[in-house]
């Protein structure tokens, strides 16, 4: 032992048993620690366990408050009835904020989005995955994953709704059939009141006998061609962000409908197509009978180009992807909606099927005179379908305008980059333009422009605050410091 120690000291080394083996290990360990440390330093999103617990607790408190508000019953209508800014619009997003309270911090998925959907037009929302385009549409439907995801107070989503008029007992007011004269005009009595068509009241196929022994005579309710009775309606503007879930259920699926990305998973595998479609009619149209629901289902299936007899009794797994997407569209059309949200309706489909579905959507929009909010990442689809385009990046709108303006005269560097980076048939480029880097981490977004670090046109101004929306033309807006001097 001592000999070894002396030998080591003679060589000028420190004597330590096992050191020859340990030295190598320590060096390697040191390197590993250094690497992790370097890596860790770059990863600024690291949070400690303690911090995570604190955040979770805080989130719980906030989300509970929001949930409580949504679940209230008998909320006075005055709380959520508002007025439209422009009567031609069907939906107005006004400063919409939708946050997700995750354990790693608050994710501002939608951060101050404002745009309008005019009546009878198609608005396309483009952006990369994670930019908040789907969350925007889910906020409108009140389908954001709760309790984590919440529409923040102060956001407004105004929707022009047509609701059934109700009498003082809370019942729908039916429209009665009025007698027509030989010219097809409605007949009136001497007081100016309409003369209604009357018929004996029926119950289970037999006339109902009143107390005086005579059959009870009542007015006949007006019906549409499918045999669905009609009720009086009125127009009301709702603020969806403040609406309780109970009331929202009457609008969702009836006036705003949604076509999802995955036709494979959005139909229920254990019910037949017919049953699933009829269910929508029963839920949303008061007074619908089995026969009238089936008639409506048949009508809509025909409209989307399916022979109804072949599909009505089938199960979803028996249909191909394109057929299922058609069924989804038929389902969305059942209650004559005013707005259809199509969330990547063709992403899961082949090109030839995509062409069929896009043609169909365009055709249907004409027929029902509704609006479409089209969410997609495919610029080609947008160019073909949309009248107005909204480009989103990291939860904010960076540019919006008519389709012509966005495609012919893109202003924001991101919009330009997006267009240049997409290869197109018959457009020859040697090398594709690529936007460097990737979308920033959604937690703790900086104050400056979110696109600054990837932008090739950044200037000194870009280090300042997030750029305001700048009006370039009556319809064209862009959020970029480059265009500030033009105002």
């Amino acid at each position: 032992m001592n000999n070894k120690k002396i030998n080591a000291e003679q060589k000028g080394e420190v004597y330590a048993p096992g050191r020859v083996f340990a030295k190598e290990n320590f060096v390697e360990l040191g390197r590993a620690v250094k690497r992790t440390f370097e890596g860790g330093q770059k990863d600024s999103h690291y949070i400690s366990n303690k911090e995570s617990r604190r955040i979770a607790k805080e989130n719980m408190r906030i989300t509970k408050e929001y949930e409580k508000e949504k679940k209230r019953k008998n909320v006075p209508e005055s709380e959520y009835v508002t007025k439209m800014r422009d009567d031609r619009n069907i939906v107005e997003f006004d400063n919409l904020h939708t946050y997700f309270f995750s354990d790693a911090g608050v994710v501002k998925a939608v951060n101050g989005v404002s745009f309008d959907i005019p009546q009878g037009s198609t608005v396309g929302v483009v952006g990369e995955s994670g930019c908040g385009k789907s969350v925007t549409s889910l906020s409108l439907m009140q389908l954001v994953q709760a309790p984590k995801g919440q529409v923040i107070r102060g956001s407004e989503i105004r929707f022009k709704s047509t609701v059934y008029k109700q009498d003082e007992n809370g019942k729908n007011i039916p429209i009665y059939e009025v007698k027509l004269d030989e010219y097809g005009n409605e007949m009136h009595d001497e007081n100016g009141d309409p003369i209604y068509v009357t018929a004996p009241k029926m119950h289970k196929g037999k006339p109902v006998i009143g107390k005086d022994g005579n059959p009870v005579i009542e007015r006949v309710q007006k019906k549409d061609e499918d045999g669905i009775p009609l009720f009086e309606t009125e127009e009301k503007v709702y603020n969806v962000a403040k609406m309780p879930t109970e009331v929202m259920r009457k609008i969702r699926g009836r006036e705003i409908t949604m076509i999802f990305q995955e036709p494979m998973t959005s139909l229920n595998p254990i019910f037949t197509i017919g049953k699933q479609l009829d269910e929508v009619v029963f839920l949303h149209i008061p007074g619908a009978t089995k026969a009238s629901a089936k008639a409506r289902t048949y009508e809509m299936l025909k409209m989307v180009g399916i022979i109804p007899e072949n599909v009505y009794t089938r199960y979803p797994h028996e249909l191909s992807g394109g057929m299922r997407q058609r069924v989804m569209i038929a389902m969305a059309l059942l209650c004559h909606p005013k707005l259809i949200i199509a969330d990547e309706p063709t992403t899961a489909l082949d090109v030839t099927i995509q062409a069929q579905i896009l043609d169909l959507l365009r055709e249907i929009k004409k027929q029902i005179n509704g609006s479409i909010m089209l969410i997609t990442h495919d610029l080609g689809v947008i160019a073909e379908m949309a009248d107005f385009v909204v480009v989103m990046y990291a939860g904010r709108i960076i540019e919006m305008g008519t389709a012509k303006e966005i495609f012919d005269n893109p202003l924001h560097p991101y919009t330009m980059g997006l267009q240049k980076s997409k290869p197109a048939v018959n457009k020859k480029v040697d090398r594709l333009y690529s936007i460097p880097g990737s979308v920033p981490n959604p937690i703790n977004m900086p104050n400056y422009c979110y696109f600054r670090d990837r932008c090739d046109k950044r200037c000194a101004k870009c280090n300042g605050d997030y750029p305001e929306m700048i009006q370039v033309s009556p319809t064209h807006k862009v959020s970029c410091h480059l265009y500030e001097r033009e105002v």
Partner: protein
Amino acid sequence: METVNAVENKDIILDVRHLKKYFPIATNFFGKPTRFLKAVDDVSFTVQRGKTIGIVGESGCGKTTMGRCILRLHEITSGDVFFDGINVRELSHEQLRKIRPQMQIIFQDPYSSLSPRLPVGEIIGEAVLAHKLVDQAHYREYVLDVMHACGLQTHYFDRYPHEFSGGQRQRICIARALALKPKLVICDEPVSALDVSIQAQIINLLKDLQRDMGLTYVFISHDLSVVEHISDEIGVMYLGSMVESGDKEKIFANPLHPYTQALFSAVPVPDPNVKMNRIVLKGDIPSPANPPKGCKFHTRCNQCMDICKEVAPKYKEYEPNHFCACHLYNQD
């Protein structure tokens, strides 16, 4: 190693001849297969060294199965695949193992094709060690070089796949394939799971690597615009058969087969001023388990004739390096 010197032209790295892959879908009482799903049915093409062939087609047309058959990840039912003059179908397992480093594959989904339990360095370097391309001493250096070439920062070496975004993961997949210094890379939809801006980065990377390393790609994709950008030659597949193939310029300038024409016209153009004169195909792609008689495309074709329903068209060369299988053109 057994070599079949069937390829005269040294420039041709991959020669696929009458490749067939049938999957049994029904068996009789004794367990003998009675019905087959003809995933790939008589496909032939050649690829020159350093070039890219793009394979397009709808889902279920057998593109991926064909790519896997070339690597013999699926056993080939019949036909031959000559890789560098070697018949891949006849190789034993040991011989196949030796040849594998030269032909690699990049999978479609970067989220499920990386082991979540291995750090990035090991994912890339595992096969390098297994095939003894470098010794232990130079291993780390070698892997870092590969990572650098594929645009990955070297301090990612010890990280795990879940820490990366889709684009970065696809870079890891590419690095894993290229670490073995392959001659042929099968890219099975490498960009379809990625965002547009990331797509462009990956396509540019693939092109740069091809130029630097002299790679040959078989680029499988359903996105025509991407295929047009990256390929020198194009093959269009429908229900397991090649319906048209040849030079990219020739096919895009003059598509012969009605399916190719419809496919090209269905691609949306990102320009609202262009109104396409679109050919919209009727119906869906038929099931490959029960393909239509005669020409497989006749059920959806807008120029269908009587003969199409009875006789399958021959696959013929109509102009130099432009093949097509359709009754509309001279079949003699």
